């Protein structure tokens, strides 16, 4: 039980670094991809947060991004191994198109996560550790403190630009 908890915490850190890196490389904090994402960013800024972190959080809400890709890749790996992870990438790609998102952050995140998680599964991790880990990781960004999360994301975005 303690082993599983440690694995979940490690998976949280791994998936957090993975999807935040991919999202920032794909410039999610630059601007709101759709009008709804910009509205969410404005509300986060009005609540004391940072606008660029808010844009990224709004974009995560409005279309499947790399974090969704990581979650679904972990689900795919649990169900059917590597082919399942790649099937998840296809589903994320379709989801992006449905949500009028022209970007490839979600698809890239899902493909990358498939191989990263598969690697860690060879080292004794379970796919379910990564499912719980990704949910915990998204909780730290979207669900605890919008002010602190958006400030952190804006700082990371500042290093990128």
């Amino acid at each position: 039980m303690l082993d599983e908890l440690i694995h979940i915490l490690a998976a949280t850190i791994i998936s957090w670094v993975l999807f935040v890196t991919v999202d920032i490389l794909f410039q999610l904090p630059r601007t709101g991809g759709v009008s709804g994402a910009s509205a969410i960013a404005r509300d986060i800024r009005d609540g004391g947060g940072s606008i660029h972190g808010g844009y990224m959080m709004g974009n995560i809400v409005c279309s499947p991004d790399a974090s969704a890709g990581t979650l679904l890749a972990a689900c795919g790996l649990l169900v059917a191994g590597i082919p399942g992870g790649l099937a998840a990438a296809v589903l994320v790609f379709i989801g992006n198109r449905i949500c009028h998102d022209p970007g490839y952050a979600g698809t890239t995140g899902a493909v990358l996560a498939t191989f990263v998680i598969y690697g860690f599964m060879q080292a004794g991790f379970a796919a379910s550790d990564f499912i719980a880990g990704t949910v915990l990781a998204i909780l730290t960004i979207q669900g605890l403190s919008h002010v602190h999360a958006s400030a952190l994301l804006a700082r990371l975005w500042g290093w990128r630009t």
Partner: protein
Amino acid sequence: MIALPLIGIIAVFAAVRVVAERKTGRKLPYLNVMNFAIAGSLVLLLDHPLSLVAAAAYFVGSTLESNAIASTYAKGGGGGR
């Protein structure tokens, strides 16, 4: 197997925050966390090859709904404030 109970607790926590938050624009990120947790728990609960499709369909559908709510909110419609 603590992954499933952990995800369940996160889903309930996020749902409570959705209800407690007053601004629509700031409800949606909490809702996003809840959707992640539900999509993950679907796969952990359903031991079937098609559970991935169920999770992806749920997740993409709920994201599209959030997108629609957010864009309606951006236009000042829907009365949600």
